[in-house]
């Protein structure tokens, strides 16, 4: 008897540029007028091409990109696979193909067993319906049988901690309750194979912990999980194997530790440069270096238009991808306050003595009151070692050192007499 759960052979997905879903670009569908105009011009362009006049038969809709290409791997039963990669690496496309939401353009995939896919929590929830109604609705959308939902109903309600509000329309729920209920339904899906996308990245920390715990329980029951995540630490914690995607291809298939090392290792060192854009403010230079007792972060930006009150934000991550510390130029105001300008440089000093030796990654955001202009995720890296100048001695746990105040009082009765 085979123990294969998922087998993927040379899977590929091609998108028409006109049809790809882009954040912010909602004009992905055509109007009838465009199609008619397009169809009408094809014979002319074909004629031009034949006459060698340099016409293009390919029209705008025919430009394509491969979101996923030549991907092959096998997943055995009971494995917990983490899928990591940057935005646009093809992770979500893979998940959408395996959950049959979209179809591949090439290749083949085989899934042995009932599959549940969680691409978001609360799919199909309706604010007018009560918690009870939404549990049934969402459960059936996720592929649960009515009898199965009825059997698990009490467990779902208890997990979500919404016992008193089960017959209240969910529009009256707090956002926390809503998310808990949504995750609770998903968590009680009893399929042999689970495909999960980033759903843990919601809710408060305490709830995320609860979700991770539930995922570990799922893993312990011997079910197969394919888990797409940006959170390196949860991949590290949950997964038995990891796949690294880059540019639509599977680049590394190995243990989580090896894949994470590769992923983080692929990041540049302490310097980043980029040409300025003519349309939006851009971070053009960034550098992170250790100078004496401080980490010096220096970030330059250029903008085609003047920005009033530019704000720089940054987050420091450890080598497992967990956020350690973050702040922005509003929390600790810049002096002097930045004037309205088209270009400028922020200089930040972060006390390095508070960081334990590790490899750290820094994400940067440039914004103002109106918009986020430039986001660079985990773009800078620095290695803090123990010893002179940098960090603390390795016997300390955790990523940061905080000054603490100590006292000692002897309470030994004999010594006082």
């Amino acid at each position, binding site marked *: 008897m085979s123990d294969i759960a998922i087998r993927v052979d040379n899977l590929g997905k091609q998108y028409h540029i006109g049809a*790809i879903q882009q954040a912010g670009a909602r004009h992905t569908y055509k109007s009838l007028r465009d199609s008619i105009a397009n169809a009408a011009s094809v014979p002319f362009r074909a004629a031009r091409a034949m006459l060698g006049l340099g016409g293009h038969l390919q029209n705008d809709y025919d430009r394509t990109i491969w979101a996923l290409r030549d991907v092959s791997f096998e997943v055995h039963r009971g494995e917990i696979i983490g899928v990591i990669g940057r935005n646009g690496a093809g992770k979500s496309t893979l998940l959408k193909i395996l959950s049959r939401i979209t179809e591949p353009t090439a290749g083949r995939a085989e*899934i042995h*067993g009932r599959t549940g896919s969680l691409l978001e929590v609360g799919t199909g929830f309706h604010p007018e*319906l009560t918690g009870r109604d939404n549990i049934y609705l969402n459960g059936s959308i996720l592929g649960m049988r009515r009898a199965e939902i009825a059997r698990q109903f009490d467990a779902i309600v208890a997990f979500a901690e919404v016992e008193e509000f089960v017959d209240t329309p969910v529009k009256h729920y707090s956002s926390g309750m809503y998310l808990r209920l949504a995750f609770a339904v998903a968590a009680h899906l009893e399929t042999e194979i689970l495909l999960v996308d980033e759903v843990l990245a919601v809710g408060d920390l305490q709830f995320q912990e609860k979700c991770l715990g539930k995922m570990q329980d799922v893993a312990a029951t011997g079910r197969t999980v394919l888990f797409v995540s940006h959170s390196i630490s949860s991949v590290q914690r949950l997964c038995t194997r990891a796949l690294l995607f880059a540019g639509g291809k599977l680049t590394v298939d190995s243990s989580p530790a090896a894949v994470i090392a590769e992923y983080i290792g692929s990041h540049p060192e302490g310097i980043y440069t980029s040409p300025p854009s003519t349309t939006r403010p851009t971070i053009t230079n960034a550098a992170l270096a250790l100078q004496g007792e401080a980490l010096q972060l220096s970030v330059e930006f250029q903008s085609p238009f003047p920005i009033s009150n530019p704000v720089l934000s940054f987050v420091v991550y450890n080598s497992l991808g967990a956020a350690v510390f973050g702040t922005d130029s509003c929390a600790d105001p810049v002096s002097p306050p930045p004037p309205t300008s088209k270009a400028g440089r922020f200089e930040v000093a972060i006390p390095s003595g508070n960081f334990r030796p590790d490899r750290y990654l820094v994400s940067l955001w440039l914004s103002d009151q109106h918009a986020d202009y430039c986001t660079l995720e985990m773009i800078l890296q620095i290695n803090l070692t123990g010893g002179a100048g940098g960090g603390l001695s390795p016997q300390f746990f955790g990523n940061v050192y905080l000054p603490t105040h100590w006292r000692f009082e002897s309470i030994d009765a004999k010594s006082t007499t």
Partner: protein
Amino acid sequence: MTSTSGSEFEAVRAGLAGTALDSIPITIIVPSRGWVPLNLDELWDYRELLYFLTWREIKVRYKQTVLGAGWAIIQPLFTMLIFSLFFGKLAKVPSDRIPYPLFALAGLVPWMFFANGLSQSATSLVTSSNLISKVYFPRLAIPLAAVLSGAVDFAISFVLLIGMMALYHQAPPLRCVYLPLFFLLAFVTALGVGLWLSALNVEYRDVRYTIPFLTQFWLFATPIAYPSSLLHEPWRTIYALNPMVGVVEGFRWALIGADTAPGPMVDASSVAAVLILVAGAFYFRKMEKTFADVV
């Protein structure tokens, strides 16, 4: 959309080699091109989802409107009054020797089911885009649920029709047992047109704007305000290629005993409705593969 991305799932369910108890469904995901089978057995597997989607449509519609189910009475009632006043009283349109208000209402009740089902299902895929881009299930369930949810409104307005019949001391003849067949014909027509329009609406958002125009046009092309007996054979049968002609005349014949024996008209309407539905279902399935990418 060109056909280069043409591919479709082929879901195969089979038991693995092993004990009968341990059979595991295997899903095979491969690209395939062009026309694809309807996979009605898969739709049947998802019948509980279809039930919940229909139930959600109904529940939400009645919760979000102040008058709720009252609309199912108000719409046909007021249209009937207007028609009776202008067509019946002023224009003196004949009504096959049936009191004009009853004549109009017997046509309006199935018509409203059709028109609402058509417009609900035509926009259903776009309004359910969050489901389509996040979960897999047979997409046919969405327009199907939209049409099915109209059945409750139909039942309510049908009570109004019964009330009107009582008012005119009109006992239903024995042939009213055929009524479910005419309802089925209205359902098949609404679903068939709804499948075409919903699939087109994903690709071409213009479709949404044509729906009010289409239903209005269709209303006048259907013998609701006037009897089809104004036409003579063979034009009457050809006219019945509009499936709603067969539905409306069938309703009148089965319920209030209009002497318009609908025989060949119902045949023509049924053939047309089934053709629209079958072609619509295949077209829908062919377009289905692009829904999640485009919607």
